[in-house]
């Protein structure tokens, strides 16, 4: 059984002092009795078992307190009750369709995992930049066919948004939500938060990670700024999706009908999962590209295009 706050179970340690308190019995009263022989006779008959019991705790108050302590501890820990059966009839499968899933075998593994998770009534959602509902309430055979034909796209993904979309749909109540992704790029609250949100809506949320860590560097953001002198300044954000640091070579190449082609290179060092901004100045009008020259498993996010309309001077007669 899972707990929201497993440390709450530490309150169970309170049982130890409780037992000690009850074992430390007060000093017995002393009674001088001439007829001890009868007490000993009772001992020979039934007292043996009772004596053993007296070494244990017989006070019903102890058991009440013990029960209260256990209940309080469990309440603090907050058990997550799996009242949704594993083989739930309704299954919602969210498959990450971002470019990171183009890594060989990732999408295949995702398909296999999705097919294994199918239920009687299946909804398939592709987590792209927006959630794309590929199928709703289809049977297992149709769902399997659809999943088999799924491909990753050169798009970013917003898995959290897809989850919230599913959770907020009341038709998905009592469903099992299976999220299949490489989880390389997660933007949003922590996965645990989404699990709690889903559980609150009586849904079961599972995360299935596919693929092994592979080298992946990407230009994740960029913007252009006009310098009002006919040139532009481009600032892009480069991210290292590996847990190892890497030295990246970023090259900007400008092609313009008015100017000669120019190449500017820049080298940066990124720590594991680190990001850094690179600024390229004096970008002429025309089409330019910014490219990470290092080879990785996801090449589509290594290239950024900059297109600045060419304004050619026109001669006019007044």
């Amino acid at each position, binding site marked *: 059984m899972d707990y929201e706050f497993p440390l709450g179970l530490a309150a169970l340690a309170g049982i130890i002092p409780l037992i000690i308190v009850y074992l430390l019995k007060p000093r017995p009263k002393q009674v001088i*009795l001439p007829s001890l022989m009868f007490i000993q006779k009772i001992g020979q008959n039934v007292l043996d078992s009772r004596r053993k019991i*007296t070494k244990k705790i017989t006070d019903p108050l102890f058991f009440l307190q013990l029960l209260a302590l256990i209940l309080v501890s469990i309440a603090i820990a907050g058990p997550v009750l799996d009242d949704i059966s594993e083989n739930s009839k309704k299954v919602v499968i969210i498959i990450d369709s971002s470019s990171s899933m183009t890594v060989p075998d990732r999408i295949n593994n995702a398909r296999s995992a999705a097919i294994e998770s199918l239920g009687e009534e299946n909804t398939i959602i592709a987590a792209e930049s927006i959630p794309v509902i590929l199928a709703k309430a289809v049977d297992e055979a149709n769902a399997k066919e659809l999943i088999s034909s799924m491909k990753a796209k050169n798009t970013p993904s917003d898995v959290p948004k897809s989850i919230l979309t599913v959770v907020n749909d009341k038709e998905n109540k009592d469903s099992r939500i299976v999220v299949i992704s490489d989880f390389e790029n997660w933007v949003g609250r922590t996965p645990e938060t989404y699990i709690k949100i889903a559980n609150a809506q009586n849904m079961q949320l599972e995360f299935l990670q596919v693929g092994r860590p592979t080298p992946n560097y990407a230009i994740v953001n960029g913007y252009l700024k006009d310098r009002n002198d006919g040139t532009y300044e481009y600032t892009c954000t480069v991210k290292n999706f590996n847990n190892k640091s890497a030295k990246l070579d970023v090259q900007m190449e400008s092609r313009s009908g008015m100017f000669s082609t120019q190449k500017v290179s820049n080298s940066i060092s990124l720590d594991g999962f680190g990001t850094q901004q690179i600024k390229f100045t004096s970008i002429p009008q025309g089409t330019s590209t910014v490219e990470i020259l290092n080879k990785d498993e996801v090449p589509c996010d290594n290239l950024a295009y900059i297109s600045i309309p060419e304004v050619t001077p026109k001669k006019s007669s007044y």
Partner: protein
Amino acid sequence: MAGAKNKIDTSFLTQLDKYTLPLKNRVTAVHAGNHISTKKGAGLDLVDHRKYNPGDPLKKIDWNLYARTEKLYIRRFEEDKNLNMVILLDASSSMLFPESNPNKFEYASTIAIGVSYIVMRYNDQYMIATFADNVDYTKAHKGRDEFLRTIDNLSTISVNGKTKLADCADVLYSRIKSKSMVLIISDFLDNLDSIRHAVYRLSRHELILVHLYDENEINLPETVDGIVKFIDSETNEEVSISVGPQFKKEYVEEYGRHMAELDKIAYDFKIPFFNISIKNQPIDAVLTIIGER
């Protein structure tokens, strides 16, 4: 009484003046006295005749019978004997219960003194022997002076040891030569076999068993509850136990079984058995024993 350990109530003795001690069996004491005996001798009551044998005293010949039958017969009279009362008083530590006055020993002594008083008044012999591990046996007494001395002895005697009734009976068996009235006053908190053996050994005498008890001994007081360490007053043995209503019930049953066995022993030997609470007035207890109540 200076230095008295045990408080003996003698205030009721004068009320016993009008009572006497009935005997069921004829006594066989050596001394001549007021009680009928099984012996033939120099009494006043004619029992029977027997043929004259040479050597018999001539004065015992019934000459009237000779005149009618022309045969010599000797007249035989029932000999008057003294009563020999032996009171066996339990002086084991268990008799010191309860701690309040009177305890069982003081009450037993008071009863013994009461019975002795009746015996003393008829100039019969009495003896109060205390027993615990051993018997404290003195010779039989007679008369008022000895009676006062007996009270004094009982009030200063030290009460301790364990009840060993069988051993005491073995000792007394050879000591009490004539057929006597033997009164055993005890709480009988002893092994039943030991009690049976003692009764068997003394059964040739006119035996009376007097069992003394305190109510708190049978029904444990309400204050005795929870975890209690019981200490035996004789052996100092300790038993710690959780006391509740069920335990008290079992205890009463066990005590009752012991008393029933004592009753059975008395029934088997056809001897009187009295159960007397020490809360009773001593005079009532004495009158119960001598059969007046």
